[in-house]
């Protein structure tokens, strides 16, 4: 059951609080052995400072709470107490209206040094910064997400250290995700993405940060807006390049997928398949994913990628249909994808038959009905829908019980158009080059236009 589960892989890239949600999911669906999960849950709880929850767990498994845990709890509480003393001053400063205005103004025009100077007039001291950062972390751990969020909001424009600013942003993102404010989270995600791009980090660190970003965004895209299908397509838009687009940053994301987190292919593949009927760009995404699978650049294999492999690489439709049920199971157990199970199966079978139609000259309705366990009339209707949505032309020969595909070859007109389409553009480029050259003109200049 745990064969295709990704909890372990995903947790490596997530925050403690998010990890807990995943572990809870695994516990509920009984994917792993309970004892194992409990121990790992305790570990996570401890590092997240969820001592009350830990006590509960110990109570549930009828074990006494170890001494160390109590000690740590006390240490943490002391830490929070000591912070709160210093924090009162911080609150004083940041509750002033002028300060609030200055900070919100600084977001459009960031200048930490100037802002610090300005705030000093209102009793701000540089050492408060550190306190604020620590406090934000502590409040986050205490699940007081709003307070932590404000703290970080105030903190970010004041610090001049880019890496600190980056971690403040990560904190913000975590806060927004955990407090389920997905609108804000999307915004922060965008800021974070551009910040990662701009901050000079080691290539490996950057790669890592991007991998995290993709993982965290899963929460936003799969849970935001109650999971409308249009929403999840943002996952593709954000991280996969469109056809013909040469976006360096998106290539970086692909690089991150290939090298650090190939398991994300599942999510991309599912989203691409689901959105395929409504969104033509998803086909490009599918193509990218298939390419990654084919060249084994991403070392990952599960029923979903195998399905795509069957459809687009081996053209083995029987096997693809068999795989559908396996995919269903995997999706059911997955933390993010549970709700998309039926959508996926439906879209995937459409995809299979779409490709099938493109290759075959005729399709027996009986065959479709058998494969999809539908009645003949249902199958007929389904096929008609498919043909319409996939932009194919076909005729049904009902008497003989098959659908005859009408394949129109590309007309000569289109071919000529295609081959000459680039000519104006190229001529223009040539001309521009001449102009840029200025005085030196060649003798045999020719102009070409269609």
């Amino acid at each position: 059951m745990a064969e295709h589960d990704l909890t372990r892989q995903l947790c490596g890239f997530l925050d403690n609080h998010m990890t807990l949600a995943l572990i809870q999911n695994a516990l509920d669906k009984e994917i792993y052995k309970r004892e194992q999960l409990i121990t790992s849950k305790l570990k996570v709880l401890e590092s997240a400072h969820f001592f009350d929850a830990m006590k509960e767990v110990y109570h549930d498994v009828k074990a006494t709470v170890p001494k160390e845990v109590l000690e740590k709890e006390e240490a943490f509480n002391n830490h929070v107490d000591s912070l709160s003393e210093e924090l009162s001053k911080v609150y004083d400063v940041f509750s002033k209206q002028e300060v609030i205005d200055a900070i919100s103004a600084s977001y459009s025009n960031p200048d930490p040094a100037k802002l610090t100077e300005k705030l000093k007039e209102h009793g701000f001291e540089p050492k408060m910064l550190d306190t604020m950062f620590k406090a934000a972390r502590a409040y986050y751990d205490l699940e007081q997400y709003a307070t932590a969020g404000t703290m970080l909001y105030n903190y970010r424009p004041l610090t001049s250290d880019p890496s600190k600013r980056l971690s403040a942003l990560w904190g913000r993102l975590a806060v927004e995700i955990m407090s389920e404010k997905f609108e804000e989270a999307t915004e922060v995600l965008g800021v974070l993405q551009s910040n990662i791009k701009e901050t000079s980090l080691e290539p490996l660190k950057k790669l890592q940060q991007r991998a995290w970003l993709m993982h965290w965004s899963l929460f936003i895209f799969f849970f935001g807006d109650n999971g409308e299908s249009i929403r999840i397509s943002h996952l593709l838009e954000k991280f996969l390049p469109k056809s013909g687009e040469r976006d360096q940053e998106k290539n970086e994301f692909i690089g991150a997928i290939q090298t650090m987190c190939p398991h994300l292919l599942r999510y991309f593949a599912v989203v691409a398949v689901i959105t395929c009927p409504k969104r033509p760009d998803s086909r490009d995404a599918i193509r990218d994913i298939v390419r990654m699978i084919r060249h084994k650049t991403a070392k990952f294999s599960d029923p979903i990628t195998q399905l795509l492999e069957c459809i687009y690489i081996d053209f083995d439709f029987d096997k693809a249909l068999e795989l559908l049920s396996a995919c269903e199971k995997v999706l059911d157990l997955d933390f993010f994808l549970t709700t998309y199970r039926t959508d996926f199966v439906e879209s995937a079978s459409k995809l299979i038959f779409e490709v099938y139609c493109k290759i075959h000259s005729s399709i027996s309705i009986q065959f479709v009905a058998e494969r999809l366990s539908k009645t003949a009339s249902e199958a007929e209707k389904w096929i008609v829908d498919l043909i319409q949505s996939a932009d194919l032309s076909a005729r049904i020969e009902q008497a003989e019980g098959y659908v005859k595909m009408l394949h129109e070859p590309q007309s000569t007109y289109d071919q000529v158009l295609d081959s000459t389409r680039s000519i104006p553009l190229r001529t223009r480029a040539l001309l521009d080059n001449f102009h840029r050259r200025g005085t030196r003109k060649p003798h045999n200049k020719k102009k070409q236009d269609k």
Partner: protein
Amino acid sequence: MSRFYTASTSEESSSEEEEEVPEVTTRSAKQFTRVDSSDEDEQRVVKSKAQKFRDDAAVQASRIRNGMKVADWSSVEDSFSNMCKLLEKSKKQIAEVGVPISCLKIFVELQDEVKEAYRSRKKLNKQQGTSLNRIHSKLPKFLKTVFNRKPLETSVNEYRENPVEEEESEQEESEDEESEEEEEDDEKKSASKAPEESEDSDDSYWDTDTSDESDDEEAGERNEQRGFRGWVATDFLKSTTQAKKKQREGKEGSKPKPQAAKEGEGEEGDEGEEKEVTMVVQGKTKEEKPLFEKGEEITYDKVMNKFKELTSARNKRREKGAHRRALRRLRNISDDHGFGAFPACNILVALITSYFDEDISATGYMDIMKWALVHNLLVELIGLLLKNKDIVVSNSTTGNSKSNKSINVDVVRLVERLDDELTRSLRNIDQNSPDYIARLSDEVVLYNLIVLTQQYSRTLTADSQCRVRLLRLERIYYKRTFLAPTPRGPTRMLPSKVEHIMEKYDRQPKPEDIHFPVPSPWVVDNKVEADIEGLVDRLCKFVYKHCKGRMAVRTALCHVFHLALFDRWTEARDLMLMSRLQDTISQADIPTQILFNRAMVQLGLCAFRAGNVIQAQAALNEIVQMGRAKELLAQGYKFRHDKSQSQISKEKMRQTPFHMHINVGLLEAVYYTASMLIEIPAIAQYGTGRSRYMNRNFRHRLEEFCRESYHAPPETTREKIMSASLAMLQGDWVRCREFICDLGVWDLMPNKPAVLTMLAEKIQHEGLRTFLLANSGYFDSITLDKLAERFELDMKEVRGIVSKMIFRRELYAFYDPMTAAVVMYRQQPSSLQVAAKKLADKVGQLLDANDRLYAARFYSGPREGGQQQDNRRRPYNRYSHGQRGNQRYRGGGQGRQWNNRPPHTGARLRRTGPQ
């Protein structure tokens, strides 16, 4: 006699012409100074009879020796008869003093040499031959008869049997012995003390003396033996000749000698003996200036002060040998007095650096012997440092460490130098000679040292640790099979030299003369080495963790190479891509670029073995394409008119040693085979026009091949591949497979059967594709089972391939499930449509022509675009772009050809269709 010397030297060494000393003295400056007083020039020397005899004998001996050296037997004969006369004449003296050792020695040599030469006498010309014959018959007779009381023969035999008996002086060359005896004589006779002699004149004498014996080529050799001799000398000093030394010291104590003269002598002794390698082995002692006065109490501080004194004086060029000997003696003294490891380490470091400081001889690399010596010293040094943890080694230039036991040296750097010297010698030694193998076997020895250094380096900075690991990595990354190394010592003598000695002296050097003993801490653990993948992994991870920049780059490249060698294709490729080296490699130094090329090529081979033909082709493309693989991999160089001499010599310095070469024939075979598998279906599909992955080189070769009016049975690899390509294009995949699988070069592939299976399968698939693309026009429908039968594939595979082609619109056809056949759709365009298409094509061509024209006029404009496109198309290799120093690596015609391509063509004109 000195006339003789000067006469002979004037040709070879132009140095000391003005020093022509008339008719005086033997070679030795010391003697000269001792006998005469202040004046240097034209002093007539009064000599005793015995001394005169000895001098004359020495002259004759050296003449004989010289004659023998050049196999001038008539002159040997002359000198020999002179010698005979001389001996006859001076019977009286001989009765008193005994036969001079120089004579005994020369007789021994003469016997050997004559015996040797007599065997091959037919080679000599008539005159020489008769002379030789005469000597051959005279010599034994003379030896038997000359002295009645004790025939010379017995003395000679005694000497031959036991040359060590009188090692004090006998191992010396005649000149040395002579001077030494001379010295004793002087002492006995209490000859007048010589005043100080300036060092210069000393040196000049020394020059005159030695230069006749050593021609330039042997300079290295000389150095070698000097160094070595010194080493052994210390040993002797320590052990066997203690008594004599004491005795001498006693004498010295009573009658201290002029310092300069002595040093001169030391120098002489050191430099003078280089004629015979065999002799080197035995030790000698020599009189040197004592480091400390007799009776002086030797303390730790004094030793250290002396050391400082010595090191500060080390830059005087001619005194290298003396300097080293002094250091060695100092070390012995320090050891004798138990001053611990610190002075010893200091002295070792000074010795090692003094070897490295020396100019490298004309051969371009450090001599083998010296290398071995330095190696031994380094092992000793590191051994000491390992044992004595309190000695701090720092390589900070400021030298601010407070500890009084700190040595300012970069140990790793020393090991690197040694490593470098080994590579350099491998580069220079003929790769087909046994010398190369002998030298290569020293790699194990060096490896041991590196491992030892790695153990020691734990106390050093992370940077040094990384460097040691990189050294180690670079010694193993290219090795595929593990052979358990046997512990062995560094080579002392190369086979060619051994042969030389055998020829000359007719005896096999002892094994211990060929190799040094195994270095004492032998730390190479075969278990660790056998798991080479694990080892490389550990080494690399350490470096990645602690280092950045060049070292990390080199490590990554070695790692890629290694992974590719072990067929870990995805890992190797990911590492290559992750490290983003393709972007930055053009800024790297050239050795690193070469390493990059090597890694790239290995990656290509690995991709091929893994069946990733496209990647294999892409990786090999740039390197193989222009036929400059050898150059780019630094496995050979071409002389081109645009290369200056210095460029060529630089290139030579960068050559990859032969044992690390990647077979270029194999590369070509892989490249062309991969190209065939990619290009032939494309040609079938698009004709000879442009296609997506067009490989001009391959197409050009194929066209050339097709133009030949008659195809003889293919012989070369490339011809075979071209024949195979043609066969595939004609749909004859079986013949294609035969040609390809028949290639001999696949033997060089590890895991050959798997490669052949992969190839056969690929050929089947691509053959099917080619067949369908080329011939679909002739069919209305083809059943799948017919195809399967024809290409010996199973139905499922055929269906997969055909489906893919249909889906990609490569084949305008559909699969009919009722009849299990592929139905071809064809449209017959009207003549208007054909004309329209043609016109569109022509317009495109015209535009292309314009672009090309523009590019030819204003080179740089479209070039930018073109280059950009190139970069995109060739993600792997940016080798030829970039920095100025690299110009050499950019092929003359290559840049033009690529850059001439108009900026916007490429994929645009390709037939479009849904993917």
